């Protein structure tokens, strides 16, 4: 089991990420990722293969940077009006792996409100975190939606 302080710092890191998304500070959000960090949202339950199986999102820092630009400056149609979100992260369980990194599991709920519509997303985050100064960086974030293989309407913002 991790010591209390490291566990707590990891939780605060996840809360920071959620807050940056809710505040639409997408560039700051992207800075939480390693230069080759990956954001992965599978399309199938238990999916392990991002090459032979389609993903809802499978993007590294370079592609995420394009996505963030689109969110910030270019004002995608799907983002007009810009949605408001509440990203909630809980049930955080972290362990240190042999290479000095951290494997973190957490449950999430995100409520997204846009114009006349309110949507709820939920599922499980799995992170690979590396140490970075006094904080952490995301090497991989896997977002497993409970309805990943279901019927989807357009999804606007990262979870």
């Amino acid at each position: 089991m991790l010591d209390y302080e490291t566990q707590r710092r990891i939780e605060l890191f996840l809360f920071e990420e959620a807050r940056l998304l809710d505040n639409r500070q997408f560039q700051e959000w992207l800075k939480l990722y390693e230069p080759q960090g990956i954001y992965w949202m599978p399309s199938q339950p238990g999916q392990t293969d991002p090459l032979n199986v389609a993903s809802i999102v499978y993007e590294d820092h370079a592609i995420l940077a394009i996505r963030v630009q689109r969110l910030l400056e270019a004002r995608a149609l799907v983002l007009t009006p810009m949605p408001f979100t509440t990203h909630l992260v809980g049930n955080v369980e972290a362990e240190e792996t042999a290479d000095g990194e951290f494997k973190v599991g957490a449950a999430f709920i995100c409520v997204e409100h846009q114009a006349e519509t309110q949507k709820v997303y939920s599922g499980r985050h799995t992170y690979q975190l590396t140490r970075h100064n006094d904080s952490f960086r995301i090497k991989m974030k896997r977002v497993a939606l409970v309805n990943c293989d279901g019927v989807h309407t357009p999804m606007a913002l990262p979870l």
Partner: protein
Amino acid sequence: MDHHVEQPSLSSDEIRSLVRPDHVHRRAYADAAVFQLEQERIFSRLWIYVAHESQLKNGGDFVRTRLAGYEIVVTRHTDGKIYVLQNRCPHRGARICMADGGNAKVFSCPYHAWSFRSDGTLDSVPHRKSYPDTFSFDDPQNHMQRIGQVASYRGFVFATLSRNPAPLIEHLGPMTEVIDNLVDRAPDGEVEIASSSFTLEYRGNWKLHLENAADIFHPSFVHNSSVQPARRAPANASILDQDQTREMLLANGFGTAEWESIQLNGLPGGHAFMNNIYNKGVLVGQDTDPVAARYRAVLTAKHGAERTASILGMNRFNNIIYPNLVINAQYQQMRVTVPVSVDRTLLHVHCFRLKGAPDEIFHRAVRFLTTLGSPMSMIFSDDMEMLERCQQGLEKDVGPWIDISRGFGMERHGRDGSVSGPASEMPMRVQFKAWVDYLTAEAA
């Protein structure tokens, strides 16, 4: 089903009055009675794509989908034949199959355990002795209903509820070329539908998607929010996809000359396609691309250089097989439209594996599917937003006519139908001409 109407259908004159040569009445998109007639005369009478044979390899394999107003299971029975069965128990009317697909020895109704073979026939009922003497296992009334007829074209399975349909090949017309091209791109002469796919839903009429797929005027506006960031982004920065995502985003920002060279084609029956859109990088198979070179070599070994060049040279985009199929052969992509109600549509988005091609070719098809077909697509999510806004606008009963006049009278006749430049709304006019013909045709 939402908006269901049980009332006399619209007269042919009423239908004709909704379409002018260069305008369409909002009721074509927003009137539930029109939708009902479309279900009866388009989605029940035409050949509708329902499955791919690679999903139905063995006896007991099945796919669950929709055909007109019915939920159906498309099955491969042990006799080797494909059946289209209504997914409803003849006993109490319950839906039987809830899985999207798979293999089943029998379909068993969970309510009172009537069981059916994959050709729909009744296999067993519990407490047989309490049924009347007249109850027969052979009586089709006691079977999962076989609805419609089935025909395949090179692995693509179509069904129709029409009792006396024209042959499938006649309905497909010259559009067989795009199915041929997709299959011919596989060195082993066979394609396999990928196990993963997306199902997207938009709150809009089904025709809006087909019109959007035939419209190359909107990308400069609708997709500007992904074109601009992709232009500013450095090339080859991604470690994942050899720049494929960035190139796909860039491709919607056409140069004038590039855009002007696009040709639109509208065919009898409402089919349409356009030529060449993506013409850079890994999507094109440049000579400098080692994967493309290996793939070309395998295909050449099979077909020879000349035929290979002809197969790989076909560069048509958004091949629309009216009324529910959009195929992009060169990227092994397919979208299937499923109308749910007048203002609600599902899109199944698939990709294919070319059997015998290098694995990386399939990885690119999967990547294409993710980039364009995912609900978080930086491209298609904006298209869907526009389809929904059109529906919202069309539901208002003010200013009933909308415009499809761009390029009117400027199209010319080609080998298979009308041909126009990229600015024309000719494909929409062609689709609506066919739409009126189908909706006003005598009973089939």
